[in-house]
């Protein structure tokens, strides 16, 4: 026991100390001689060989310094060797070891650590201890493995099961430190989430770090609420820290039920180390002694980790408690007062202590109670805004009755088909209304913005209001159609946001293709914006040049499907010939003017005979060769199916930063352009974290933490799920990037991470009604057995008849 106290003290002292002293103490710098001496003495050493100090390295050194004391407690010397002063062979010689620290044990190199995995004191301590303890701490991936471990431990050792949401965190460190102390007493197991967590009843998508205690040592005769195969388990409810884990483990050692013969008021409050734990008293009568003990044991299991249970024998003369009470409790630190209760069910005790816990784990409670909360981000947002109804004044509400007249009245009717219970519909409805208001404000005439509530006008949405409508039945919600009189309906297939809808509508107002009949018209088509509302949007333009009207069918068809996405123009006859001659293209031709190029440098496509083929060519030509990825345009680039060479740049604070970013992008551009063939396999692209903040979490999950910017990452390789990070702090220069790509292909680079699994199982457990029925009404949901069935056919009718005839004595019933 004394030893325990020391440990606690030690742990506690250290956690208070480390931050104060870190800045003042110097990291021990070993000379080569020191290093060899310590090495040969067989001591455990954690050494970094310093070459040159970059900002990242100096950050690391500060953290390393902080870990000196922490690791000292576990017998690990921490220090660095300055290679600039003297060389320690191999470790100082190799440049790539710049990013590595080493653990020595028994006179040999034991393990090396990439600095990426040991970025602060917590990760250093946890990783080093993990390495030392790696034979003792088991990793478990599946429930079957866990079961095997439980079987092996049964009757011998209890198991401490830890889940940390990520390695190198304070929680990870706490488990490692505790494992170091208790490693021989308990079997420590780390789990990696997934199926094991499910077994433990954790169903959240991103659970927090947790610890469970598996009572495997108790002999099987013990009354447990669990199935016989598994060890009963207790979840640690307090947030994970070294101290809380320590006291939790001690509490697990406490006797389950203590029998006392004193009145609760004279029972001593819990002694060290349980002084922070509440006591619960139940009373036992001689007549029901065994039953009472069973009840107490059951409750004790449920209270384990929360409170200590004492069973008071009423027959003892010392017990003064009134008979009307059947339970009592005493809270820690709240004087010695005992509160008496009359309970109707054991659950009331649980409620009592669960409430006590509530403040501490409110967040957790919320997570667990996921039945009353919406787990779908769009549904939740819509639900939260349910109070603020959109003002529908700016849109026309179409019905089965007014549809035809309303559509006939307007040159362009934009129709949103929605379902009011569909969250996505409702999220989009407000954007739709916003566009309607914007159009009204800017006095864009001849566009009628309208909505159809398909939960009401079901026949209209099914395209069967009794007379013909210009669209097919709507089966996907929300859907937006653009209806020009006398034209087939046009589906809006863009992002369901106000900006892209606005852009689409404004572009759709322009004829597609526009027939250009003078050079001035061509000039204005290429240079001017057709409507002030379109200013500020990036406009792609496509022009078809044909000798004769008769050749234009495919182009016209393609232009129709481009309506809303791009501006299309058509030149024929002499004008086309003249223009072609001026620009040295052969007729027929299709010129594509992507917004990111200027009109003087169009792409020239051969005019194909099929509209589909032409569309493919046009769409390919419109893609930027080195795009800035945004939330909006990512899908069109992912369609290419290429590996992504992804440059992340941060937001610039000043002109210099801006210039740097530009230079970077330019460098990448050079790479793409100069190494055409090699680069063909990759899509070089960049994400500006200022404009696309969503990119930040992407980068975070690629490299495990937030690296310094800019960062270059290679991912989505057709060959596998590996993610490679271009060495940080290495200048991004076309030639070295190219070499790096080569090394990746040769397999000499090690990946920094993996793309996550592609399977998307349900994130939440469904509510299994069958199970509930089987529990509450065991046979009601079971198939009948064949024998019964024979009789079953007529049973009902017979019963009625039998009842009637057998009911002789009742007046009015049988005569």
């Amino acid at each position, binding site marked *: 026991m004394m030893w325990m106290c020391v440990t606690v003290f030690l742990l506690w002292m250290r956690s208070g100390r480390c931050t104060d002293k870190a800045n003042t103490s110097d990291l021990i710098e070993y000379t080569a001689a020191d290093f060899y001496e310590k090495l040969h003495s067989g001591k455990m050493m954690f050494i970094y060989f310093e070459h040159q100090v970059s900002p990242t390295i100096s950050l690391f050194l500060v953290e390393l310094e902080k870990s000196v004391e922490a690791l000292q407690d576990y017998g690990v010397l921490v220090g660095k060797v300055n290679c600039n002063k003297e060389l320690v062979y191999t470790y100082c010689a190799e440049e790539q070891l710049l990013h590595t620290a080493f653990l020595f044990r028994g006179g040999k190199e034991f393990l090396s650590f990439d600095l990426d995995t040991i970025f602060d004191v917590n990760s250093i301590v946890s990783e080093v201890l993990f390495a030392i303890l790696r034979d003792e701490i088991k990793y478990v991936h599946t429930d079957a493995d866990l079961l095997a471990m439980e079987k092996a431990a049964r009757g011998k050792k209890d198991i401490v099961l830890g889940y940390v949401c990520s390695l190198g965190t304070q929680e990870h460190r706490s488990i490692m430190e505790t494992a170091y102390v208790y490693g021989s007493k308990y079997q420590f197991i780390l789990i990696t989430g997934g199926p094991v967590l499910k077994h433990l009843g954790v169903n959240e998508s991103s659970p927090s770090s947790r610890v469970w205690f598996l009572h495997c040592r108790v002999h099987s005769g013990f009354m447990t609420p669990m199935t016989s195969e598994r060890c009963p388990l207790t979840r640690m409810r307090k947030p994970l820290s070294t101290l809380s884990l320590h006291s939790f483990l001690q509490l697990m050692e406490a006797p389950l039920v203590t029998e006392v013969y004193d009145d609760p008021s004279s029972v001593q409050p819990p002694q060290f180390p349980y002084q922070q734990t509440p006591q619960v008293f139940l009373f036992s009568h001689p007549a029901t002694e065994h039953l009472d003990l069973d009840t107490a044991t059951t409750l004790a299991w449920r209270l384990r980790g929360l409170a200590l249970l004492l069973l008071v024998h009423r027959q003892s003369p010392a017990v003064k408690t009134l008979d009307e009470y059947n339970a009592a409790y005493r809270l820690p630190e709240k004087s010695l007062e005992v509160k008496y209760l009359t309970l109707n069910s054991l659950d009331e005790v649980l409620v009592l202590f669960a409430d006590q816990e509530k403040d501490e784990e409110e967040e957790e409670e919320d997570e667990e109670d996921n039945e009353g909360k919406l787990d779908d981000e769009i549904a939740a947002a819509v639900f939260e805004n349910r109070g603020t109804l959109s003002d529908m004044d700016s849109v026309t509400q179409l019905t089965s009755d007014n549809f035809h007249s309303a559509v006939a009245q307007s040159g362009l009717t934009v129709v949103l088909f929605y379902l009011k219970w569909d*969250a996505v519909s409702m999220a989009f409805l407000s954007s739709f209304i916003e566009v309607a208001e914007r159009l009204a404000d800017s006095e864009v005439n001849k566009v009628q913005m309208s909505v159809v509530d398909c939960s*009401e006008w079901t026949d209209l949405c099914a395209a069967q209001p009794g007379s013909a409508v210009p669209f097919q039945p709507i089966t996907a919600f929300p859907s937006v159609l653009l209806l020009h009189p006398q034209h087939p309906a046009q589906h809006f297939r863009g*992002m369901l946001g106000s900006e892209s809808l606005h852009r689409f509508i404004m572009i759709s107002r322009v004829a597609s293709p526009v027939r250009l009949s003078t050079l001035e018209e061509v000039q204005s088509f290429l240079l001017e914006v057709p409507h002030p509302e379109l200013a500020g949007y990036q406009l792609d333009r496509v022009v078809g040049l044909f000798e004769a009207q008769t050749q234009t069918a495919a182009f016209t068809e393609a232009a129709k499907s481009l309506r809303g996405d791009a501006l299309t123009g058509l030149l024929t006859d002499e004008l086309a010939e003249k223009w072609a001659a001026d620009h040295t293209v052969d007729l027929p031709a299709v010129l594509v003017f992507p917004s990111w190029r200027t009109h003087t440098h169009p792409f020239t496509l051969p005019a194909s005979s099929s509209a589909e083929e032409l569309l493919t060519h046009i769409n390919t030509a419109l893609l930027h060769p080195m795009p800035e990825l945004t939330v909006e345009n990512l899908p069109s680039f992912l369609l290419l199916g290429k590996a992504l060479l992804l440059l992340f740049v941060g937001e610039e604070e000043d002109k210099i930063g801006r210039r740097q*970013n530009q230079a970077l992008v330019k460098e990448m551009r050079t790479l793409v352009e100069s190494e055409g063939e090699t680069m063909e396999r990759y899509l070089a692209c960049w994400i500006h974290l*200022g404009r696309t903040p969503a990119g930040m*979490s992407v980068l975070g*999950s690629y490299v*495990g933490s937030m690296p310094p910017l800019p960062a270059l990452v290679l991912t989505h390789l057709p060959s596998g799920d590996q993610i490679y990070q271009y060495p940080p702090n290495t200048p991004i220069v076309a030639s070295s990037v190219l070499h790096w790509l080569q090394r990746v292909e040769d397999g000499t680079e090690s990946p920094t991470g993996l793309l996550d699994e592609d399977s998307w*199982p349900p994130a939440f457990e469904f509510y299994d009604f*069958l199970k509930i029925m089987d529990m509450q009404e065991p046979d009601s949901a079971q198939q009948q057995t064949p024998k019964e069935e024979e009789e079953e056919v007529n049973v009902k009718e017979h019963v009625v008849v039998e009842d009637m005839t057998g009911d002789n004595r009742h007046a009015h019933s049988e005569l």
Partner: protein
Amino acid sequence: MDPSLPSVILFILIGYVLSSFDNRHHNVTRRYDYCVLGAGPAGLQMGYFLSKARRNYVILERNSGPGSFFNKYPRHRKLISINKIYTGRGNREFNLRHDWNSLLSDKPDLLFKRVSDDFYPPADAFPQYLSLFVGELGLRVQYGVDVGRIRAVQSATGRHYILTDQHASDYTCSVLLVATGLWVPHTVDFVGADLVEGYESISTNPDDYKDQAVLILGKGNSAFETAQSILGRASRVHMLSSSPVRLAWQTHYVGDLRAVNNELIDTYQLKSLDGLAEARLEKIVIAQQKEEGKRRLGGKKKEKRKQLYLTLNKYMHSRNSFDATQEELPGHHIDNFPMRKPYDRVIRCLGFRFNFSIFDSSACPPNSENAKGRLPELTPWYEGKNTPGLFVLGTASHSRDYRSSAGGFVHGFRYTARAVHRLLEHRYHRNAWPSTQLLATHLQSWILKRVDEASGPYQMFEVLGDVILLRGSHCEYLEEFPLQALPQLSSLSGHDVSMHGLIVVVMQYGKKKIDYLGRSRAETEWTNAWKSNFLHPVLYYYKTLPSVEEMKLRPNGWPLPRPQAIHHIVEDFLTEWDAPISHIQPLRRFLEHCLQTDLRAFYAESCFHLSLTHRMPPLFCQQGYLKQQGIPRNSQLRQRVHDAGLTHTEQDVGTSDADSTFPNYLAPAGASVSSGLKLDL
């Protein structure tokens, strides 16, 4: 209407002799792919579907107009099928849930409300509506064709039905759709049955019952309707049948006693001379008291009506005579026998039975096991047992859901007629059961749409259900399939079940007997949805189609066998199952379980993240975002980003937008950027 049976038989005999001559004489080819027998609501409903599909069909009707049954019945001329015109909704499908008289068509205004705006419409309105229906849709009905004999003929080209009418003309039909309804009054054999008047011929003038004691046999709606009409004139009205009154509002079966007819329950319970009693009619005797010594020959009209006694078989010495001695009356044995006083009239109101007599043995479906054998026995897809190609529609098809659903009533069988037509289209014309293809991520909304508005499964609860064939990332949605035919789904519908299994959406009532007006009659907590008492949607998930055997052995009271997983959507006061927490989310989790995939919706930003950190993002992102239909988290229209800057790296003269710097519009976002650095480790 209602010619006596012997004359029909006579016609048949004569017709048979003359038939060959007759056919040649008329020189008309009467061959049809489809013959519909009867121009009542079911026949016309089927006629509409056949006409819409442009099939070679004819509707044969022996009377001169459609729906002639309703010219006579109900005798007191008030329909009890509700005609709810105002529902507060424009949803035509939903409104049909509360319109029990209209037939289905694609004409939105061809509804019953055009002929009557009474909630309980007059019976005359019904034939009037049917005439309208025939006229506006141009259905081919031949009136005055009284088919007296139906036989089946097996030939090289297949099985045909030959119908012979009163002129001995033959109609050869590949498929026969019998929609003759029920019109033969049902009788029970007991001594004294001849002393009893029938519902079909009683006077409907209440004054004819002045101060009379009346015994009504039967406790259905016609019995109560009769009782109600004479309540103000008769001295006492007693009602007798084997089972106690079943109240429609308790059993949810519209064929049971409707509250609109239940005034007699009131007067009974308030002890106002009326009463109800139970006895098996086979055991009763209606008797006249023998008047010894003063013998007179009875039966003359002007004479005072003889009083009728109710007694029991067991007290009668002679089994055949309805003249009873004092000892043969029950009062002699039990001095307080409830019905010891005599009646002036005994009226039989026992409903109707199917007319089996016109079917030759080659074409006659067997009698049903339920409904006292009054109906033909049918397969789950309404084909006669042992009579392939002969289907029974309308009220006569009620053996499939007798006393459990609405298949015997217009608002129910209009949907079963559609179901039969759909399978005819598949069986004979290879048109698969119509289906809607949906993306898996759109399925939930579609199910909600159906359960919130669909009328077919709502009326034909536990009989017709929507079937969803899962196909991975998409699914096929089949509407209103007969549930009992589920084992034969593939052959009947032309759709296969894939390895992903299927979901069946059924509307169900709770099966527990509860206090129907008591406090705990409704569930509101979704986790208790399986205890719902009112009509609510239930979803069954099967990995494979259940077998016929499994269907037979289904749990007691269930419409379908035990599935792999089941989901009840908790009953709703407004029958609007669209609450995000109580209805929608639990449904989504169930669908996720069936499809084994995350079906949550994500904003474009989340999809962006998930697409870059996974090879494939969740289904919603695949089917929306990756198709460039993402949902941006915030509407950005107001602070629209002028995309300039680095995208314009080609600096050409003449570019209107030559500014190559990064705009600083996002400066305030800087804070979130730096804090973001620590997130998402």
